[in-house]
């Protein structure tokens, strides 16, 4: 490892540590100054305050139910894609994995349109809200099961099943499931289920809009965050935020650790075959594929359709009319809301700012871990775990860290520093870059580099002509992921940017939707903005799909 490389690596680790630890430490310090250091009291405060009572139970129960629902929905789809032959398979896979990259606020708008008065009209029955939320989480996370399980299913050598059929333990379908498929799929299912649990546990926009009046720990923290950390004013807010963060951090950490351990311990090493050899034609698969495609596309189509549907104030004229009023309202803005272009420019600005910092930072961090793994494996492992820290912190907590952390340093900075919300986005996206780049670096064949070195190729040429072209795919995917995540980020932005006038598209959607519904343009305008964000995300998704190696598995 040469000096320059060590220097860059150290720079990236110091920067990353500063970005993550400084705001969070300042925020915790400020909260503890108000609440005192008493973790038991923090946790107890959750049941003692009306705003937080029952929130932990609600969060855990809905996350478990959502995980089960996602397994029920996602596994058959992964099976149909992995085991059966389809024409236009790549297109189907793209459609079915699309929900995962769609910002949750768009999903919320689409699902509200489906269950609302002009859809299946079940919204007036409050008892349906919880189930709607669970199904929404299944919609959002089913892609995880496809990503984790489908590569394995599609490359499983059919000879294995044929051989098992001849054995006493493989004669019945049930016994083959028990003795072959279950052990084979379990690590991938557990990994996907853990990630589904994590995403459902930290759900914000979907909970905020679908189960109105109920909160997850994440959305509740965002609600009370504005009054947290103030001595002599609403002091219980600080206890609540600390208690909720502690519970959330512990549960997320255990979930991520569990997923990692099971995946490593139970990784099956079996003979693989090419997908065209493993797969067979089975038209019964259409019974899974067609409803799955409709399920994946319905909320997205609803968003677009809903942007043109305007409720009539006069019932004599019918329930609604079609028109561009919502789009007009969104584009023009008004006394309450900035125009759509402001949201687009701010969101794009934050996304590119985040890209500018998170991509080099995450990539150099990944390189440092990769280098350390060879000379100091323990330190490398430690750094690897450290980069995952934001996964276990909620977006709201990160937003809170940025906001009250920076305010503690300099109150004016929170107002003057346009890029402040991007700091939260950097914290949230950098770990994803590390997770994408690290496996790519590990699989990078160093022989190319060594051969070039022997041939006398300069280091800069080796980097530009050999390494970067080979790592182009993961870098493009990382970039797209950063842009998409930043564009759709809601939790941290809700905490940070709602106190500024640099509104982002997801916040603009939320604001329009929160407008009293007496305004017939409130819902279509929010859908119109959601449609714009959806198209931006779709473009990014299509770029990423071009570069993605489907056989790798995993989230990305």
């Amino acid at each position, binding site marked *: 490892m040469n000096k320059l490389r060590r220097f860059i690596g150290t720079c990236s680790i110091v920067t990353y540590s500063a970005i993550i630890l400084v705001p969070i430490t300042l925020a915790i310090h400020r909260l503890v100054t108000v609440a005192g250091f008493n973790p038991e009291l923090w946790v107890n405060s959750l049941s003692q*305050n009306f*705003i937080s009572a029952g929130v932990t139970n609600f969060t855990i129960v809905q996350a478990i139910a959502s995980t089960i629902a996602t397994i029920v929905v996602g596994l058959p789809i992964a099976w149909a894609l992995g085991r059966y032959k389809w024409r236009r398979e790549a297109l189907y896979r793209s459609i079915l994995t699309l929900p995962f990259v769609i910002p949750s606020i768009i999903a919320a708008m689409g699902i509200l349109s489906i269950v609302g008065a002009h859809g299946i009209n079940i919204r007036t029955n409050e008892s349906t809200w919880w189930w709607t939320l669970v199904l929404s989480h299944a919609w959002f996370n089913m892609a995880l099961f496809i990503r984790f399980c489908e590569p394995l299913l599609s490359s499983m050598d059919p000879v294995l099943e044929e051989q098992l059929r001849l054995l006493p333990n493989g004669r019945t379908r049930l016994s083959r499931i028990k003795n072959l498929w279950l052990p084979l799929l379990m690590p991938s299912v557990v990994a996907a289920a853990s990630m589904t649990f994590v995403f459902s546990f930290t759900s914000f926009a979907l909970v905020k809009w679908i189960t109105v009046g109920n909160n997850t720990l994440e959305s509740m923290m965002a609600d009370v965050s504005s009054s947290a950390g103030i001595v002599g004013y609403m002091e219980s807010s600080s206890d609540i935020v600390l208690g909720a963060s502690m519970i959330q951090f512990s549960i997320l950490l255990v979930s991520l650790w569990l997923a990692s351990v099971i995946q490593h311990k139970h990784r099956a090493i079996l003979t693989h075959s090419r997908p065209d050899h493993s797969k067979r034609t089975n038209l019964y698969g259409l019974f899974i594929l067609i409803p799955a495609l409709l399920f994946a596309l319905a909320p997205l189509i609803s968003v677009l359709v809903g942007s043109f549907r305007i409720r009539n104030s006069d019932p004599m004229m019918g329930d609604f009319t079609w028109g561009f009023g919502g789009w007009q309202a969104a584009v023009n803005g008004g006394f309450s809301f900035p125009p759509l272009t402001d949201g687009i420019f701010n969101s794009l600005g934050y996304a590119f700012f985040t890209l500018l910092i998170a991509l080099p930072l995450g990539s150099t961090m990944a390189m440092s871990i990769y280098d350390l793994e060879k000379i100091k494996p323990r330190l490398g492992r430690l750094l690897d775990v450290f980069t995952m820290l934001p996964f276990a912190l909620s977006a709201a907590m990160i937003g809170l860290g940025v906001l009250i952390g920076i305010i503690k340093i300099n109150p004016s900075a929170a107002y003057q520093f346009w890029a402040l919300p991007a700091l939260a986005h950097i914290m949230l996206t950098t770990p994803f870059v590390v997770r994408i780049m690290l496996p790519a670096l590990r699989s990078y064949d160093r022989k190319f580099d060594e051969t070039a070195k022997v041939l006398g190729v300069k280091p800069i040429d080796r980097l530009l002509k050999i390494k970067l072209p080979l790592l182009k795919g993961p870098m493009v995917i990382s970039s797209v992921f950063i842009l998409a995540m930043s564009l759709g980020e809601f939790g941290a932005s809700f905490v940070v940017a709602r106190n500024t006038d640099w509104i982002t598209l997801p916040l603009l959607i939320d604001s329009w939707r929160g407008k009293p519904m007496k305004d017939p343009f409130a819902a279509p305008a929010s859908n119109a903005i959601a449609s714009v964000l959806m198209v931006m995300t779709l473009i990014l998704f299509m770029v990423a799909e071009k570069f993605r190696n489907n056989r790798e598995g995993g989230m990305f």
Partner: protein
Amino acid sequence: MNQNKTKTKLKPSLKILSLALMITLTPFSGCLSADDSDSNDSLDDGEIVIVTYDVYALTDEMISTFENDSGLAVRMLKLDDAGSVLDYLIQNKGNSNVDLAIGLDNTYLPTAIEFDLLTEISADKTMMQDSQSNSGMSPLDPYDGPLATPFDMGYICLNYDTSVVDGENLSLPTSLWDLTEPEWNGKVAFPSPVSSSPGRAFMLATLDYFDWSQNMTEFKDWWSAMAENDAIITSGWTEAYETHYSGGYGVWNEGHVGDAHMTVSYCHSPGVEAFYGENSTKSSALDLPKTSFFQVEYAAAVRGGNSDYAHQFIQYLISPEVNSKMPIENLMYSVLADEDLPTDNGYRYHSLIPGEPSSVSNDAIRENMETWLQEWNSAVTSGE
């Protein structure tokens, strides 16, 4: 020998680490200390920064007229509600960029004053209403000092759906205790006083109703009984009125449930319903002694901001051409003398002026609000 070896080993690492620290932390240095010269520059930059929530009176037209007349540019930070405005001011105390806060009401103002968030200005309040005016309301009653200027007002009280509370399906309550009866189980929606200003105002009304100065027991017992009677407690007014209340315009809302036949809103909310509903409404305000609370909303210059800019905007906000439009633009009473709600479409007719509103002094609010919120919280959470 070993020592030398260690030295030569550590040296480059430390050098690299120090250099890395220097380079990476330099960009943050701008955030680490408040630059006073910058802050002072921002005071006279020709831009007034207003922190507010969705105050409908601040229309595009009204803002651009002010910009043209004053030569100042207006920049607004829109927050969720009055509570968020106060939270923002406290969290950002020392931030010299914000000049004016619009939307704090008399339930939040005492806290803002206690935290020393506001600065004095001398707004002209001579043309404001007094208790002899048509509405019988005096906006200067709750607070008449130089730290805040009233710009709109109204009474908070219980609203009920007359199509259900008709004496047959549900009887009209004659005491707050009636609402704890089984017939009202799950049928009353309250915005939480922790996060909503109408909710806070109603909590203050109940404190007076149950004579908090004697003891808090009855206040707590009633709220506990309401919680046990499955009262719907929402985080904000919007959710209570638009989602749960069966008598209001929430029926237009996609997510309208309509399970509550009584909720907390303004005494003139039925008037607003009628005004927009061609003189027709099924909502009415309950005139029960000491269950309503007089709410005044204020505009106030923020300490550290440009008080001259704030003064100019406040004068504009309380000028007849802007403030007389409050009933239409902001759905609240104007604070000006000789102004009342319009009679069109039954707006005035359906708006109740309560006979015996409750009264809690600003001093009492400032001293006790934290304790009262805690008492309310323990009452509805554990029933203790």
